[in-house]
Every structure is written in C-alpha cells, then in structure tokens.
C-alpha cells in the first residue's frame, strides 16, 4: 500500500484538471467531483495509515523522479511515508474531505462554484506535496503551493476590494517568510550537501550549535510567515475574507499548521540549536497570549476564531520550543478537529443569516438566541468550544495540558505562565462567543429572522463527524498523558537524544525532560487540576458576564476604555505596519521611479542632449564660417545681378538705342580724340 503513495496527490490533480478545464460544462457537479477526488485520496491515506499504524511502521521513501540536478546539487521528487507524515496525511485528507463535503452545501449557488472546487483540489494537492515530500525542496513546492491556493481562495470573491487585498497581503507576508525558508534551505545544503531529510538529519549531529541555530531560525522565519506567528501573523485575521470552508480547512486545520509540521520535521536540527528553540518557545508563548487577548473583544465571529487560531498555533510552537515535538503535533491534530469544527459551525451560522444585511452576517452583536433554531450547529459548536477550552475528556485538554506540563517541567516557567493565562483567555472568549451567538435574546435583523434555519445535511454531517473527533480525538491517542499512543507512534520521526552525540547539554536536558514521559508525582496532578480550573474559570467568567450579569461588559468597558480600544483595534499593529513598512516602501518605490526617470534616464537623455547641443554649435560654426565663405561668394554675385538684371528690359528698341548710343560715343571718342 505504501508504494501507492504517489496516488494521493494524483486524485486532486485529476479534480483540478476536470473542474479547471471544463468548469463551465461541469457546473454544480464540480463539488461532488472534487469531493470524490478528495475522498479517493482519503481512502489511499487510510490504507497507508492503517498499514503504518497496525503494521511495521518505520519510514519509507517512494521515489518518483529526479527533479533538479545541477552540479553537486540534486533534489528528487520523492515522497516519504513515516509516522509524522502519516499523522499529517490523516489530518489533511480527513479534514480536507469533510470540508469538501461541507462546501458542496455551503457554496451552493455561488457563480464561482467550479472555480472554488478547482482551488480546493489544488490546495489538497499542494498540501499533500508539502507533507509527503522527502526533502525540503518538495516541501517548499507544497509550501508555496498552499500559499498560492490561500491567495486564490481568500480573494475568491475578487470583486470585493477587501478580499483581493487580503489575498495579496497573505501571499506577500508569506513570501517574506518563504525568503527565510529559502535561506534556511541554502544553509542546510551548504552545511550538509543535501536537502533530503534522511541525509540532512544524518549529518545534523555534526553541526555546531551556532549553525544549527542559524538554520533553525531561518526555517522558523518561514514557519512564522506560514503559521501566523508574531510578527507576521497579520495576514491571518484578514484571511477571513475568504469563504468559511476555506477558513476552516486552510486557515485553521491544515495550511497554517505547516510551519509546526516543518519545525517538527526538522527536530534533529533544532535539538542541536537550543537558541533557536528558545526563540521558538518565546515567540510561541507571546503569540499565544497576544492573539488571545485580541480575541477577547472582537465582535466578528470569524475574527474571534482567527485570533484563536493564531493563539493556538502559538501553543503549538510553545510545545516545539520546549522540545515537546510530539505534544506540538498532537495539539496540531486535536486543533484541526475542533477548530475545523468551530469554523464550519460559524459558517453554518453565517449561512443561516445570509438574508441579514451584509455587515451583520458575521457580527455577534447582531446574533443571539440561535440555539433553538439551529440545534445541530449549536451542540456541535458547544463541543468544539469545550474542547478548545481544555475541559477533559475532550480533545483539547489532552494536548494543551501536555504542552503546559512540558513547559513547566523543562523549566520554562515564563512560557508556562503565559500559556496558562492564554488558556484562560481562550476559555473565556470561546464562551463569550457561544453566549453572544446562541444564547440570550435574538438580535438578528427582522427580515432575516424567518430565514434562519438549520443547515442542510452536507453541512451538518461533517459537523457531527468533527464533533465526534473533538470528543474522542484527544483521549484515545493521548491517554495516559506523556505516554499515549501518539507519543510512541511519533517517536521514530522526531529527534531523539543522540547517544554520545554532540548535542549540547541544554538540548539533552530538554529532550530528556520532554521525551522522558510520564512525569509522575503530585506536580503532574496539580498541573492537571490547575488546567481544569483555568478552563472552567474562563467559562464561568464568560457565563457571568454574558448570561448572568449582562451589564458587566459595559461596566468593564467604561472602566478600561483605553485598554478595550487597544484590544479592539488589535494593538494597532496593522496601522503600525502600514506606517512603518508599507508606506515607506511605497515612498521608496515612487522615489526610485522618479530617480530612474529623472536621474538614470536623465543621464542618458542628458548625454544625448549634450551631444545634440554641441552638434548644434558645430553646425552653426560650419554654417556661418566655413560654408559662409562659399555662400558669400554666391550671394555677392546674386546681389549685383539683382541690380543689373533690369538692363534686360526685353524691349528691342532699347537695345538698339543703347547700341546706337554706344556707336555714337565710340565715334565721338574716335573723332574728338
């Protein structure tokens, strides 16, 4: 089965070709076609996964063809099936298929229907390449490919200026990260002479700490861009301009976690560079806290979820940074389930409200009381929210608790505190969202009220499946904490402490702490109790503020007006970027254009002008002096001939008279001499 891995990306290619080339003829059949293709890929993935999980496991390379070969550089188009890519494949293919099915209902009636599914299949293709590649170059192909699809899908409703702006922003910000990724790849190649994972990781223990950190940081720049971490997270909230299934698939479950996957994949290098690890942990923790705080006050349902995604990605990086790679991937998986669920649920809400005015469809202040009208959506949404809040035994608890415990036990107390606060905020804003959307009195526009209805089956079935996964997706692979199945399964793919290798002391410490597993004793129990307390506390506070005492938010607002404003305006980061980076770039480019036209081209035109002027001068000299002598003779003659020509009167008698006169004069002269 594993050697059939090449089939996985082939099905989406077929889907892209059918829907892309014959979209006009396919019409509304595009959705089912694309879904079938995604489903076929999922089948292959399931086959491979079952073989990996129940069979021998291990790591298998599926070579396809030699891609780029130049001198000593060589990279092949090959796939790698190992536990890590298996988990990723399951997430991508599984959530991807569900989102396809969901979108069949959600996008119904959209004029760009075939185009949407072309892009969606293209995305699946790129994501599969990203995950399957056995070297960094193939990963980069997928990496850029998903970026492209993200661009296309965010700007799917291209007539909206904000949508096409958001798409462009996403692509360009991602490109900044990609530049770092590229440089990281170059450094890897210069250090190890290869880009293939197995060869690179074989050479990794030989790297110095500084070089490993440099590689790690450069690659992390790429991850920061793709996975929306500080300072490059700004594109993700804007990306919510895209259709909601896209937000669920690309901007929550799969693409944005590519950075996490990449860092986990590169773990053998990261363990050699503790500095890079520290940076990752700190950036992750900062992002987790920062984005969660913005999420507290947002009113757009999708924006809350977007900031929540940024925050949860921060958690994942926190895990990677403290060396708990398996926990990071675990959280990636559970997050894909519940965040996918939450986004699809919010899509279901938006779908129900599509008769409301454009600017109210996603605004929670114009929702409320939807619980009874949309029971399936409500209950699945609630499950998702409980899961993300970290209440056991739902999925989020297991992975999040592992991350915080690892941060604590590896001595990253600051990171641990930030993570715990962020977890509290997460529980709060998720339930704020639930209460504002589904509870209380209905604030929906009157015309839209009678149109509110539960979504069709193609939308609710994926919700239910994801809800089930959100319930069991944590406890089954993750119990007992730190020693669950997923740890054992992933262990071969992730870095181990090289016995007697050159790993630095801190790296050894980190790895022992993280991979040791099963921290026993009262500390663990205390941490678990604390985590539960934080989750429940957040939920309780939200309940207090938005259900019991609905005046509380206003009082808080009056009290902390400035802080509220700061959070609502997202710390003015977009404005700061606009002022500090975008505007100067515009100014620079305009300035350079003027420079080019005036100075560079001016020099060219100037030199031609000088040539022309000097040629004029020499021309004038030539005309006046040299030619003047020649022409002067001619004009002298012409002047006198002008005078004398009047002698020629044409009157024969005049001539005769003159002749006679002449004869007379001559005779007189002769006679009177």
């Amino acid at each position, binding site marked *: 089965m594993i050697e059939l891995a090449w089939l996985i990306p082939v099905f989406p290619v077929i889907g892209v070709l059918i829907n892309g080339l014959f979209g006009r003829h396919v019409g509304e059949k595009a959705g089912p076609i694309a879904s079938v293709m995604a489903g076929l890929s999922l089948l292959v993935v399931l086959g491979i996964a079952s073989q990996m999980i129940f069979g021998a496991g291990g790591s298998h390379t599926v070579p396809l063809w030699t*891609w*780029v070969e*130049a001198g000593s550089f060589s990279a092949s188009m090959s796939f790698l099936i190992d536990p890590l890519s298996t988990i990723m494949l399951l997430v991508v293919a599984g959530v991807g298929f569900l989102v396809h099915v969901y979108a069949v209902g959600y996008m119904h009636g959209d004029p760009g229907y075939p185009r949407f599914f072309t892009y969606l299949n293209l995305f699946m293709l790129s994501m599969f390449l990203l995950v399957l590649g056995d070297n960094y170059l193939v990963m980069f*192909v997928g990496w*850029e490919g998903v970026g492209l699809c993200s661009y296309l899908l965010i700007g799917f409703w*291209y007539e909206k200026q904000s949508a096409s702006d958001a798409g462009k922003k996403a692509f360009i910000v991602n490109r900044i990260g990609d*530049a770092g990724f*590229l*440089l990281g790849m170059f450094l890897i190649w*210069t250090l190890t002479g290869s880009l293939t994972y197995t060869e690179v990781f074989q050479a990794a223990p030989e790297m110095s700490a500084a070089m490993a950190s440099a590689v790690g940081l450069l690659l992390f720049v790429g991850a920061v861009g793709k996975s929306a971490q500080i300072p490059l997270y700004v594109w993700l909230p804007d990306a919510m301009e895209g259709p909601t299934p896209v937000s669920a698939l690309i901007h929550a479950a799969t693409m944005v976690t590519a950075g996490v996957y990449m860092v986990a994949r590169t773990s053998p290098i990261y363990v050699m560079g503790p500095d890079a690890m520290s940076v990752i942990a700190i950036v992750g923790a900062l992002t987790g806290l920062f984005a969660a705080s913005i999420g507290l006050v947002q009113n757009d349902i999708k924006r809350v979820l977007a900031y929540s995604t940024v925050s949860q990605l921060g958690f994942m990086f926190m895990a990677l940074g403290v060396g708990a790679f398996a926990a990071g991937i675990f959280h990636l998986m559970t997050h894909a389930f519940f965040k996918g669920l939450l986004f699809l649920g919010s899509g279901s809400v938006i779908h129900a409200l599509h008769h409301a005015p454009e600017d109210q469809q996603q605004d929670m202040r114009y929702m409320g009381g939807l619980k009874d009208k949309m029971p399936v959506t409500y209950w699945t949404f609630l499950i998702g929210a409980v899961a993300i809040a970290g209440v056991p035994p739902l999925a989020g608890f297991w992975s999040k608790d592992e991350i915080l415990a690892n941060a604590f036990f590896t001595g990253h107390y600051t990171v641990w505190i930030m993570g715990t606060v962020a977890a509290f905020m997460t529980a709060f804003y998720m339930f704020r969202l639930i209460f504002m959307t589904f509870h209380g009195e209905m604030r929906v526009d009157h015309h839209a009220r009678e149109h509110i209805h539960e979504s069709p089956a193609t939308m609710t079935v994926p919700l239910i499946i994801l809800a089930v996964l959100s319930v069991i997706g944590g406890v089954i692979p993750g119990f007992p904490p730190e020693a669950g199945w997923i740890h054992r399964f992933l262990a071969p793919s992730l870095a181990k402490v090289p016995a007697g290798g050159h790993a630095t002391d801190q790296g050894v410490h980190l790895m022992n702490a993280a991979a040791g597993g099963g921290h026993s004793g009262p500390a663990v129990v205390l941490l678990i109790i604390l985590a539960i307390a934080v989750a429940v506390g957040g939920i309780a506070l939200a309940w207090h503020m938005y259900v019991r005492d609905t005046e509380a938010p206003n009082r808080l607002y009056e009290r902390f007006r400035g802080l509220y404003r700061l959070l609502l305006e997202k710390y003015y980061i977009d404005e700061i970027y606009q002022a500090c980076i975008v505007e100067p770039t515009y100014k620079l480019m305009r300035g350079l254009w003027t420079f080019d036209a005036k100075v560079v081209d001016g020099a060219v035109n100037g030199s031609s002008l000088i040539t022309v002027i000097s040629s004029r001068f020499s021309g004038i000299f030539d005309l006046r002096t040299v030619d003047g002598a020649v022409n002067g003779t001619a004009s002298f003659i012409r002047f006198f001939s002008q005078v004398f020509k009047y002698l020629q009167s044409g009157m024969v008698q005049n001539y005769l008279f003159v002749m006679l006169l002449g004869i007379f004069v001559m005779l007189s002269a002769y006679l009177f001499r």
Partner: protein
Amino acid sequence: MSNMPLLTLITFLPAAGAVIIMLFMKKEQTKAIKGFATAVAVLDFLISLPLWFQFDQSEAGFQFVEKVSWIPTIGVSYFVGIDGISVLLVLLTTLTMIVGVVCSYTAIEEREKEYYVCLLLLATGMLGTFIALDIFLFYVFFEVTLVPMYFLIGVWGGPRKLYAAIKFFLYTLFGSVLMLLGILAFYFANFKMGTGTLTFDLVELYGVGPKIPLSLQIWIFLAFFIGFAIKVPMFPFHTWLPDAHVEAPTAGSVILAGILLKMGTYGFVRFALPLLPQASQVFVPFMVLLSIIGIIYGALVAMAQTDIKKLVAYSSVSHLGFVMLGIFALNDQGVLGGQLQMINHGISTGALFLLVGVVYERRHTRLISDYGGLSKVVPVYTVLFAITMLSSIGLPGLNGFVGEFLILIGAFKKSYVYAAFAVIGIVLGAAYMLWLFQRVFFGNLDNPENEKLTDCNTREVLYLLPLIILMFWIGLYPKPFLGRMEASVKKVVKMVNAAEAPQKAALGKMTKLEKR
C-alpha cells in the same frame, strides 16, 4: 547528417525567406506574406529540432561545427557551432520567431510586407549571434540585429516610437562599439602575448586569457562589460529598455525580452568569463552589487508603474539581475541557474508581453487604471495570465522557480550575503506582480469599455500554449534542459576558476607595483 551545414541552414533560412518576400511577393498579398512568413518560421523551428535530439549531452565542447575561411589576412573565418550554453537559446529563438510571426497577424495592419521582412531578418541576426564562434562574426551578427529591431520599433511602434527606436539603437550601438574596442584589444593582445597569430577564432582564444596581464584584462573586461551590460540591461544602463518595450509592437517586445536581452547575458558567459578569467574574478563583487541593485531596484520601480508594459519591462530588469547574479556566482549551480533563467525569462516575460498585446489589440491602452475586474469577462485570458504571472514570480512547479532557486543557491555558496539580499527580490517580485494582477483582474468591472472585451481566440491560445507547456515542463522536469547545459557550463566555470592561482599572483604583483 553531420555533413549537412545544419546551423547555417537554420540561420540563413529566415533571411532567404525575407529576400523571397521582398522580391517576389506583392504588397497587397498580405495573406500570402503572412502564410509564407509563418511557413518559414515553422520550417526553421522544425529543422532546428535535430539540435535538441542529436545534441550530445556529455560533450562539453562545440558541436555541429562548421568552419570556412572568410577574410584570411586578418584571421576572420565563418566559424559556427553550438554547445550547451547556446543550444537552448537557438531553440528558444526559433520557437519565439513562430510566436512572434503568428501574434502579428492582426496586430500589424500597415506595411505588412516590410514588417515580416524585418522580422525574418532579425531572426537571422539573433541566430547568428548565438552560433558564431568567431568573435568578429559574432560582432557582425550582434550589430545586424540592431537594424531590423530599429525599424520594428521605429515604424510599427507606439506614439513615441522614434524616440524609443533612436534611443535603443544609439545606446546599444554605443555599447557594442566599446565592445569592438575590447575585441580588438584582445585580438592584438593575443598576437603579442598569446598564440602569436592573428585570429578571431574563439576556440583558439580560449585559454589565452590567463596569459594576458590583469591590468589589460581589466580594461578589456570593462569594454566587454559596457557592451553586454547595456544589452542585458544591467542597472544603471537599463533605461532604454522600458522605452523600447513600451513603444515596440507586441512581437517586437516579445523578441526583445525573449531573445535580444539574452545576447547580453550570453555574451558574458561565452566571452567575458572564459576569455578574461582573472578579471572576471576581480569584478565579482562589483557585478554582484550591480545585479542585486538591479533585482531590488527593478522590482521597486516596477511597482510604481502605471503602464503594464513598462511594469513588465522593469520586471525584466529585476529578472536579468537574477541571471547576472547567477552567472557571477561563478559556480556550477549559479551559472546553470542563470542559463536556465535566461530561457525561463524568455518564456514567461515573452508570454507576458504577448498577453499584454492581446488586450492592447482590443482596447488600445496599456494603463493599468483603464482595466479592472477583467476576470469576469475574459476567464481564459485570466487563467493564462495567472499561470504566466506565477511562473514569473517563481512559484515552485513552474519554470521560474527552478532557475531562481539554482541562482540563489549558487549565490549563497559564493557568499550568504549575496543570497540574503537577493531573496528580497523574490518578495518584491510577488508584490508588484500580484498588485498588477489585482488591479487588472480583480475588483468591479467599472470601466464600461471593458465589458465588451472578447476572450482569447483560438489563435491566441495556440501561440500561448507552447509557452505554457514549457513553463510546466521546465518547472516539473527540468532535467532535459539542465542536462544539456551542464557539461558546457561546468567547463566554463572550470576555466574561470582554474585561473584563480595566477590571478592572486598577478594581484600581488600589481600591489607591489603600486607600492613602488
């Protein structure tokens, strides 16, 4: 087969076609003229195909060689041949000629006979430039291309055609005259210090370089540099390019971007590097600096443009900065990447100009602000434009990526600083192209004149299709291309780098002299 003068045939077939059109076809028979020109271009492409199939990849030297004495008293011969560096350029030229002829059917409506004559003559000039192995012959062909191009811009161009044509002609002529000086200096230096014979034969002159003192090499390199850098064009010699591109008819722009600019970069690889190895090494920081400035500067200036063609023209400056960066990385990856990027740039920028030509023919405006929301009315065109744009910004899976990647990896190998600056260009490249795409294709269709825009017709799709196929082919499986170039590129790189030791000795001597 080997006895057949294939290269001569390929080179002079278009000229023969031009003569036939000129002498035997009447002005009014425009259909016949177009048909005949197309037939000549297609035939030329077909007979150039054996170059692809019969090319021996393992051979680093010249193949398909022909040599006939021409002016023996000064050592000039008609000496042609190709190696891995030129074979793809020759094929690209013959392919581009078909596209250039076919895309002009409706775009050119006056003086059609003269137009196709010019186009075919231009083909001969360009092909000759790439196959010439005699420096004198090279110079002759190099100059020959100027004349038809001058007429193409000056007669069938836009509103400021005369300005652009004269600027193009004089600027490049200025450069090539200096290049001629350099060629003559090298010729006499060879007579005095090298083989002792009067010869322009490139094969004999290869290897002479290290015997020439560095100080003289530097002067000759500067002369070559100005000649080729103007043609490339490198910053700050680039300003003729936007004007020429904007004013030239579509086919002119395509050929200019696709082939003519490559004559500059090709000149560096074919002449400047192997003939003057030490000087090339000395000039690396300088050349890289100009290349990187070109990459970033070109991209930023492109961003500020309001005219689509001008934007594409400045993007060429940026892309050719990449090519030059790769070439002056002076290692296998860099030069190979640069070589591949020449082909890539020819394909993607050529296609971009074709696409601009398609809408220009319908709307007669190139201002970005006159468009907007086009994806609604012209979906096929939008898809073609999107693919081409993505190839131009180097999306993996398309051709631009492979070239850029190899260039950057080569640059990184030389010095990580070079690569660090050059990757900025990748970010900016995405920025200006996506912004252009957004302004032209996204948003509302607010200009009523655009509503009646018709989508690409079959002919337009047909001449774009080969280019699109090539984009995917090179992007997904570049091996046939890289494989053909590799041996020759390695040889050039070796020639340059082998001279390192004597260069240092020479430098030592120089400094000693200066101290005295």
